[in-house]
């Protein structure tokens, strides 16, 4: 079974530029999460999708961050414009609702550096 795929793995941009990250979850997983992990901290949830609907985006800075989940499968997270404090690893995770295991499977992440 293929894992969660993310691209790109690394991205360097200047502040005020825009950037987009892509995530392909495990096949059949209805729930998809985007987490932000700042250096030295644990991951923090940005947004959670159930199929193609948003379950929780309370911690998403909506003035600059946006996310969508196309047809309930792939997802894109965008930052526009980027700030220095957005430098972090952006993790995508997915989970299956079947069996109520609540296990989340994480991708390798995208490391963003804003200069």
């Amino acid at each position, binding site marked *: 079974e293929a894992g*969660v795929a993310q691209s790109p793995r690394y991205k360097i941009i200047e502040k005020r530029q825009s950037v987009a990250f892509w995530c392909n979850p495990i096949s059949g997983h209805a729930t998809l999460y985007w987490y932000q992990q700042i250096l030295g901290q*644990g991951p923090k949830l940005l947004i959670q999708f159930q199929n193609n609907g948003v379950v929780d985006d309370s911690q998403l800075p909506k003035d600059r961050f946006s996310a969508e989940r196309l047809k309930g499968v792939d997802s894109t997270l965008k930052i526009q414009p980027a700030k220095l404090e957005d430098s972090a690893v952006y993790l995508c*995770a997915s989970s299956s609702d079947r069996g109520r295991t*609540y296990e*989340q*499977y994480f991708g*390798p992440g995208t490391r963003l550096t804003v200069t």
Partner: protein
Amino acid sequence: AQSVTQPDIHITVSEGASLELRCNYSYGATPYLFWYVQSPGQGLQLLLKYFSGDTLVQGIKGFEAEFKRSQSSFNLRKPSVHWSDAAEYFCAALTNSGYALNFGKGTSLLVTP
């Protein structure tokens, strides 16, 4: 507010020695609890989880964790550490809404020869 606390930022142990990583939670009710490991350049991997029942849970790679309700703790243990265990370890709890994960800040484990 719901929170997960990992009191130790860094821990150093000798190879072959025992390991205990601490985790405390602050929730109104007993949350579902998890331990994840993150190796450099890798995604997070689930080590073990606790939902209910037996308070000593076994995980992968020889890890175990013990849930103690009276101490609001869920500490991770391993009897004998291997050099390959050097990584960042995260304790997490399931949120009440939406079932996302609320992570602690992590403990960085260094294993010396």
